[in-house]
């Protein structure tokens, strides 16, 4: 790297130009930048940014969680209320993720394959949970399913209430990941299956679903991760009842409020580990399905 002494403007220029300016080398005098330089700077900037925003805070959190030693960490994570909160979160999130896998695929299917009036509106509506502050979701759901429910359904402070709230905020993940794949799906493949005698159900199961699988899996993984970490949408309708409807994010908040930051950090790290492992496994599974399809000569 002979470029370390280069004037600063050059560096700035390089990092903002594409990594391999093959056809058009920079014309600045003495500015013969090798493509490797640009790439190195790109990687450096990304590394720095990720460190500042993600890795350092996580490291700090991990260190904090071990302030009272490994035993303190273990005690914090295995406290009955903490375990209950983690359990509730994982179970509810898993249910929501599965619900999303099925319903999200169905919604994507209808949006891609069927024509009906107002389809564009429905399509736009899907993104609404992304745009709304999640606390609004909580208020909305409370208005409909709360103690003074106009439809007589009382979901306040129940696990079902948690599921409904989380399903609301995670709706777009599977829909938006499956939709583009469905759009590109070759209709002739389904016709071929039909001509070979496959019923619609068999065609879907054996031909369509395997093609959609990677997208469904990745969307489901994202929905799960989001559900595990969700706070705003469950804060009102969830009820925050320890060992019943309290989710991990609420437990952490509570620990901070009663001045037990180490407990909060320890549970956070446990949650982090679980989320990371889940995403990693799902990604592995999804990419294997995809590789099988794309394995090229």
């Amino acid at each position, binding site marked *: 790297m002979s470029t370390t002494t280069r004037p600063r403007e050059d560096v700035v220029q390089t990092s903002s130009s594409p990594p391999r300016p093959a056809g058009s080398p920079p014309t600045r005098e003495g500015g013969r930048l090798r493509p490797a330089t640009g790439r190195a700077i790109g990687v450096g900037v990304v590394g720095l940014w990720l460190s500042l925003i993600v890795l350092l805070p996580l490291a700090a959190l991990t260190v904090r969680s071990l302030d009272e030693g490994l035993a303190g960490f273990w005690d914090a994570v295995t406290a009955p209320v903490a375990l209950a909160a983690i359990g509730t979160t994982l179970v509810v999130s898993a249910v929501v993720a599965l619900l999303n896998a099925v319903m999200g695929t169905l919604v994507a299917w209808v949006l891609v394959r069927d024509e009906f009036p107002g389809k564009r509106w429905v399509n736009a509506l899907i993104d609404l949970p992304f745009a709304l502050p999640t606390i609004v979701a909580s208020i909305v759901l409370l208005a409909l399913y709360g103690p003074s429910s106009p439809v007589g359904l009382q979901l306040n402070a129940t696990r079902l209430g948690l599921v409904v709230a989380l399903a609301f905020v995670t709706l777009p993940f599977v829909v938006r990941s499956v939709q583009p794949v469905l759009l590109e799906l*070759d209709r*002739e*493949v389904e*016709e*071929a*299956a*039909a*001509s*070979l*005698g*496959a*019923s619609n159900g*068999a065609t879907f199961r*054996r*031909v369509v679903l*395997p*093609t959609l699988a990677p997208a469904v899996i990745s969307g489901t993984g994202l929905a799960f991760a989001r559900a595990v970490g969700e706070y705003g949408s469950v804060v009102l309708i969830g009820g925050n009842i320890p060992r019943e409807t309290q989710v991990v994010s609420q437990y952490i908040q509570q620990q901070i409020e009663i001045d037990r930051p180490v407990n909060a950090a320890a549970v956070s790290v446990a949650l982090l580990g679980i989320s990371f492992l889940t995403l990693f496994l799902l990604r592995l599974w999804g990419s294997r*399905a995809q590789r*099988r*399809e*794309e*394995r*090229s*000569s």
Partner: protein
Amino acid sequence: MITVSSARKNYGDFVALDDVSLTIPSGSLTALLGPSGSGKSTLLRAIAGLEGIDSGVVSIAGVDVTREPPQRRGIGFVFQHYAAFKHMTVRDNVAFGLTIRKRPKAEVRRKVDELLEIVGLDGFQHRYPSQLSGGQRQRMALARALAVDPRVLLLDEPFGALDAKVRAELRHWLRRLHDEVHVTTVLVTHDQEEALDVADRIAVLNRGRIEQVGDPVSLYEKPANEFVMSFLGSVARLGGQLVRPHDIVLERDRLAALAADARTPASPGVVTATVERVVRLGFEVRVELKADSGERFAAQVTRAEADRRRFQPGETVHARADRPADATEAEPALAI
């Protein structure tokens, strides 16, 4: 045998099939030939049941299948873009129809091995479609369609996505396969050369109607109308009539041309023209001409003929048409 009677199909204002009736004999290889939008693919898909018809009857082997879904028509269908099941190996692709029918494993294995050998893909069982060339994918698709022992094999522009050389090879291969397997086959194509080469019967379609049905020779020699004539080979317009470029005779001597023309019944007459360009296309030589009336046309002659006559750009010649029947001199010819 496939029978289509009075089939009609509209897409909104567009008439895809306009009262089409066609009989396809058992064991034949019939080509549906026509330009795009002529309704040939719609007709094929109507036979397959992939497309419904507004009115009319489709029957296969004497059974009315007009209301039957494709699953129950006993067909094999091959698509232009292969429609391979990308997540399955070649073996699983070919076995698909048999597994759906829940045939015993041993039978499936035997049948698939046999078909892979017929289509020349033995040794490729464990590959995925993405690891095959276009020609191999299409042969896999053919094996897949044949695996279910279809009563009719329907091919929708099967070689359309392949390059010219592979296309010609697969065409000959299909012909040999058909001679071995004898399954009633219908092939959709817009390529007249392909139809003439591979089919034993051709139905020419235009604007949703069947213009003519017949064997390749009679269609080429005795086209029912100008559309069929111009679609089944190149044509030149000589004195207001359509003639094959290889039927045009070029004479330097006007009197000789007139005398020969007088002996040709229903001839378009003698047209005096100037040679503009002489193009050598391998065995054939195309002589591009401009008639005194300003109309341009081309004559096709053999290389030997061209070497002997040495037409030069700028010279004046007299063109006349010879009917194939009296083309005993085995000489002149032309092309557009």
